[in-house]
């Protein structure tokens, strides 16, 4: 048969198959290397900074080795270079509290807006408004986060006259709403139409069937989207720098400047004191564990969907 003349032999095809599979494995390995390096770095350097003080204390100025912490006078035998050999002191409790308060507040703002917008996008797809909103949402989710920070600064901080936790929460809301809206939309589109029809045939008005049947069916997916948005918000630095500013003390006041873990990382890593650099790695570690924990939670919930 003439067809067979052009065909590769089985051995040739196996060789091509192996070569291509090798390429994919190499590419995957290259992609994973930086990830492993980042995790290892943060684990090794940051993990070393963790102790009880780290989680229970707030900022304390570093004290040079050889200086009496009470009198501030040099201890005998001190040399000039020792000034920067400071002890690591204090912790990032204020940052942990700030990040949790600001991000949870942002989640409370963005969850109802995002979920309702997602329902609108998924359940009323044939309106011009829908196309417009989807476009805006895509643009917003692609906007550089520093731009969100500038907008938050102009709209809220300048009007309020002070940096504040609430301003940061609103800035994060701008970032989280599109994420929640689009994941909600995608997950609602996966709800079989048969379920909507069943509710419709029971005489349920659309709002009732959406609330009692469609959304509960997709609930785990919506929770997943909210958690991912939360993880994204918790790791943002730029919008927070321009809205909550940072605070060296523990503050629960949402209407005053607050600390947050990414801001602490940023400030400590710029510090001339190696001990503070160590704290930066520690905060990075805590932030990563927070995001990792949320991702594990997401995996657990999506595993429940599949079951």
């Amino acid at each position, binding site marked *: 048969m003439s067809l067979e003349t052009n065909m590769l032999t089985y051995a040739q095809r196996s060789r091509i198959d192996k070569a291509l599979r090798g390429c994919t494995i190499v590419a995957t390995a290259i992609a994973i290397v930086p990830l492993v390096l980042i995790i290892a770095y943060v684990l090794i350097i940051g993990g070393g900074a963790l102790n009880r003080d780290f989680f229970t204390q707030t900022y304390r100025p570093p004290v040079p080795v050889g200086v009496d912490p009470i009198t501030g006078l040099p201890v005998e035998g001190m040399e000039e270079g020792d000034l920067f050999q400071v002890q690591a002191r204090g912790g990032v409790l204020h940052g942990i509290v700030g990040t949790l308060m600001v991000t949870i507040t942002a989640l409370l703002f963005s969850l109802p807006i995002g979920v309702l917008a997602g329902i609108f996008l998924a359940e009323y797809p044939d309106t011009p408004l829908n196309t417009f909103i989807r476009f805006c949402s895509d643009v917003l989710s692609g906007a550089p986060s520093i731009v969100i920070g500038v907008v938050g600064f102009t709209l809220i901080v300048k009007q309020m006259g002070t940096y504040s936790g609430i301003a940061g929460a609103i800035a994060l809301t701008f970032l989280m709403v599109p994420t929640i809206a689009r994941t909600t939309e995608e997950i609602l589109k996966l709800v079989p139409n048969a379920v909507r*029809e*069943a*509710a419709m045939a*029971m005489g349920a008005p659309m709002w009732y069937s959406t609330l*009692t*049947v469609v959304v*509960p069916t997709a609930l785990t997916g919506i929770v997943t989207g909210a958690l991912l948005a939360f993880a994204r918000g918790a790791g943002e630095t730029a919008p927070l720098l321009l809205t909550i500013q940072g605070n060296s003390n523990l503050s629960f006041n949402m209407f005053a400047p607050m600390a947050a873990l990414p801001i602490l990382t940023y400030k400590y890593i710029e510090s001339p004191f190696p001990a503070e650099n160590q704290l930066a790695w520690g905060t990075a570690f805590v932030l990563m564990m927070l995001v990792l924990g949320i991702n594990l939670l997401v995996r657990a919930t999506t595993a429940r969907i599949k079951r």
Partner: protein
Amino acid sequence: MSEPRTRSLPLAGGFAATAAARARAREGVGKTKIEAVNFNFYYGSFKALDKINLAIPQGEVTALIGPSGCGKSTLLRAINRMHDKTPGARAEGLLTIDGESIYGDEVDPILLRRRVGMVFQRPNPFAKSVFDNVAYGLRVLGERNSKRIKERVEWALRRAALWDEVKDRLNATGTSLSGGQQQRLCIARTIAVEPEVVLMDEPCSALDPISTLKIEELIADLRGSFTIVIVTHNMQQAARVSDYTAFMLMDSQTRAGQLVEFGPTARLFTNPTDPRTEAYLSGHFG
């Protein structure tokens, strides 16, 4: 609020009222429940149903049969306006329930669907417990009394011949039941609110023969209490379960569905008047 067009739903009075409603339904057996007069249906510019004239009797089982694409599902879904959400779908001519136009301007499709329930081709229970599935329609109607809901759920599940199988796991999700059980659950869900009409769109096509038999027995049992309209691909099934049969066919030129013949099932199957019916029933096409 204006006087609802529905007969007062027997939710408030428990079983006594339910029995009364069933008795009322029985009195009218044989009267025309749903009537189509020169009824056309379009999807955009495509004419899917062409001049359907049909009178579906109350309290009996009417089967719609015909080859694929003949418009039998379109006609069935037109009865409770399931096409309302389909862009471009529109009705023309007259389709009535108890003499009222289904496509009249003042008709509220939601009230209509509370009178005309539907069972679908694929079992589609909600991702809720067995109990909540059956209670759904009652809650849609605003019933909040948990004792009455309980009574009605049990009644509907017994009626759907499912009670004995699920009474110990009313809290299991509806989707965890077997396919046949899911379909009977959907039937229980539909009849729990005692609609006047139950539409069934090939309710057995996704089921195995034993489950199919159970559904057919169930249809025979529901006969009299409800007006049942069933679409089926299976001619034997139509012969087994229905009192009346409508045979539909797609026009070869316009591709629009037409009603070829309508009559008592026994007569239509043994002595069809139209040669096309005879050809279809004897397996010559379709």
